[in-house]
């Protein structure tokens, strides 16, 4: 088995991944030879089971994207409300996170279909709510207004009943924004990932780490 430790199923829980696994195995098992190609449309438009692992991919390289100009504007403003610039790193939109989210929700795989619906509907709700409260599009709001809107939907458990659906969207959108951001060079530097460089030796934790843990 691979490998434990293995990367966590990205963005999906164990139940979802197992569900896929069975669904994929069963759907192929039930088909005869002739219907097989027709029944696996995902691989026809996804990157397939033997993609080039060396090249660098950009959103839009593999499948067409979803966002309209308006949706992109809302997504950009929301990404930057979640991850704004600070003294350590730039805002999410500066490093291409909205385009990553567009790539994500446009991908031809089952989980991504769900996210497309959640994100497209969620962005529409943000705009509608922004108009209702402030008579302005979300991107034009001042920071205090953006934060006030997000405060109501930032935690599913605490959201009022009328905000529950929006809160579930916000959770998903925040997770995607974070995943998109911290996988960029700027995001990795921000969070303190300094590895992925060749070393002559692996020396274990430095003394200050051992001291902090009481292991010195």
């Amino acid at each position, binding site marked *: 088995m*691979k490998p*434990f430790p293995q*990367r*966590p199923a*990205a*963005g999906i829980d164990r139940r979802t991944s*197992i569900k896929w*696994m*069975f669904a*994929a*195995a*069963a759907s*192929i*098992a*039930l088909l005869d*030879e002739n219907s*097989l190609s027709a029944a696996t449309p*995902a*691989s026809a438009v*996804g*990157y397939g*089971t*033997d*993609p080039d*692992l060396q090249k660098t991919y950009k959103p839009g390289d*593999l499948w067409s994207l979803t966002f309209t100009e308006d949706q992109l504007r809302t997504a950009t403003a929301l990404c930057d409300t979640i*991850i*704004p610039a600070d003294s*350590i*790193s730039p805002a999410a939109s500066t490093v291409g996170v909205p385009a*990553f989210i567009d*790539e994500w929700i446009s991908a031809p*795989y089952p989980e991504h279909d769900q996210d497309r619906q959640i994100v497209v509907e969620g962005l529409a709700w943000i705009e509608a709510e922004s108009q209702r409260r402030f008579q302005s599009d979300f991107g034009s709001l001042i920071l205090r207004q953006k934060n006030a809107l*997000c405060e109501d939907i*930032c*935690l599913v458990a*605490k959201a009022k009943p009328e905000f529950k659906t929006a809160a579930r969207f916000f*959770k998903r959108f*925040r*997770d*995607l924004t*974070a*995943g998109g951001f911290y*996988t960029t*060079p700027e*995001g*990795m530097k*921000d*969070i*303190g990932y*300094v*590895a992925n*460089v*060749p070393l002559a*030796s692996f020396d*274990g*934790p430095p003394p200050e780490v051992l001291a*902090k*843990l009481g*292991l010195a």
Partner: protein
Amino acid sequence: MPIITSDKTQPTYDVIVVGSGAAGGQTAYTLTMEGLKVLMIESGRNYDPVKETPMFQTDGQAPLRAANTPDKPMGFYDSTVDGGWAVPGEPYTNASADPTRQFTWWRARMLGGRTNHWGRISLRNGPYDFKPHRRDGLGFDWPIGYDDVAPYYDKVEMLVGVYGSNTGLENTPDSSPGVLLPPPKARAGELLAQQRAKKLGLPVVPIHRAVLSVRQDADAIPAKLHPGNPKAQRLLAESMRSRAACFWATECGRGCATKANYQSTTVHLPPALASGNLDILTDAMVREVTLNAAGKATGVIHVDKKTGAEGRATARVVVLAASSCDSVRILLNSKSARFPQGLANSSGVVGKYIMDTVGAALGGHIPLLENLPVHNEDGAGGAHVYIPWWLYGEQLAGKLDFARGYHVEFSTGRRMPNVTTGANLEHLTGGSFGRQFKEDARRYYGASVSFASRGEMIPNENCFCELDPVVKDKWGVPALRFHWQWSDHELRQVAHAQKTFAQLIEAMGGKVRQPPAANPLTAIRPGGNVKHEVGGARMGDSPKTSVTNSFGQTWDVPNLFLGDGATFCSNADKNPTLTIMALAWRMGDYLIGEMKKGNV
């Protein structure tokens, strides 16, 4: 002799080896180094890790931040080619619709098979593991003991390169002096676990993995492995000198372009090819073993996966090393008047008693690991420590409610950020966003741990595979149908493991992410899901109750051998790959002797 196409095969070979992974690679290596002419047949495409491995690529360079998809179920950069839980055109089925009785089957269609992406965890079976029935009356004993395999464990460890340490712990064998490479230093979270586990009586020790922590001794090892064979010594020394030591970056599951870890494609196959004694036919799926009138194997029929054309290859001996269930499938599909129940199946045991490893996990958050000073924790691209099973005495004394043990694998540290980094932190952050979220993400990065059990499953009557009466693959070859059911031993083991992990996380000052499952059936990973499926054609002392003798030679057809995990009689908590390689080498030595004597 090289990678060839079907029209370039020789009229006949000494040995056909079906499969190119741990078993096929080791078998081909052992035989070609001793001068036998071998044809290896692989169902997937040619694959060269030196050219194809994505070293240093970050998730930001991949589609979807390298997330798992149905096309690449273990992530974009996992080395698996044309594989996963479902292989298009190559179905399998489950007999039961009950979600707790499913078997999942991971396959990789590529040269080197699953050795390209495996975890490199290389643990020896101990003396108890070969005689489990003798110890507790359950399952089956092997026809061999630890002493029969120990010299081959040493040889394989020297050949592939394994880091680790000798601990002297019960049923956790030491390697001979000088065999193991030095283990890497533990990471921060691993050290914290080690310190806190002591109070619970859990021994945290260096794990054994097939990664070169230092370069191999190319001057000394070849002579030890191939005494009296200067050509083999020279080829192995050249191969060893082409392997670099680990540079402490890049996950091993991607494969390794510098050959610092073991995969068949960088360790077994290059010297075997350099010997001039190996032909490799790729994209060719073996459908059956052919027989002559006397009932001896004459070769195989294979299907060219690109064209569908049928081909034949002939040899004095056939070795199936296609992976346990694929080897079983070939036997069951090789039906004849002489063998109406499938080849080498006069015992009726082919397909029976398949086993996986029992797996469950539990994760938690460790406040002590928050806000640690920035440092590099990539390490050897996998774990540095583990907990071997530690309750042999209690089990023997009847103090536990399950038989057989598990070891504990760790996931800790400041790993390369992926698409889940910063996700699902609300239980800690209260749902922060904005500048506060950025601070929270820095604080909590690297502060979670996860422990996973890898435990022994006892073979049972309800876990087997057979040919599906209806479903066939796209070339018309009957598919496998699986039956699966855990016994109470596995379920109670999983409950024990989760309880232990919760105690360990609390001992580290942490909090579990979720409490242990009330129903262990929701915690145990589905059958096959740990990808350690073995058994299905077990070895034994008697043709009546087993498929092969202790050397993998089938009782019914003396020139047909099984080289992979199909012959396993039990599946100890120790990951099976190292044992598969040791048994394949042992089989190869026996086969060479029998061929020299004219017995096969």
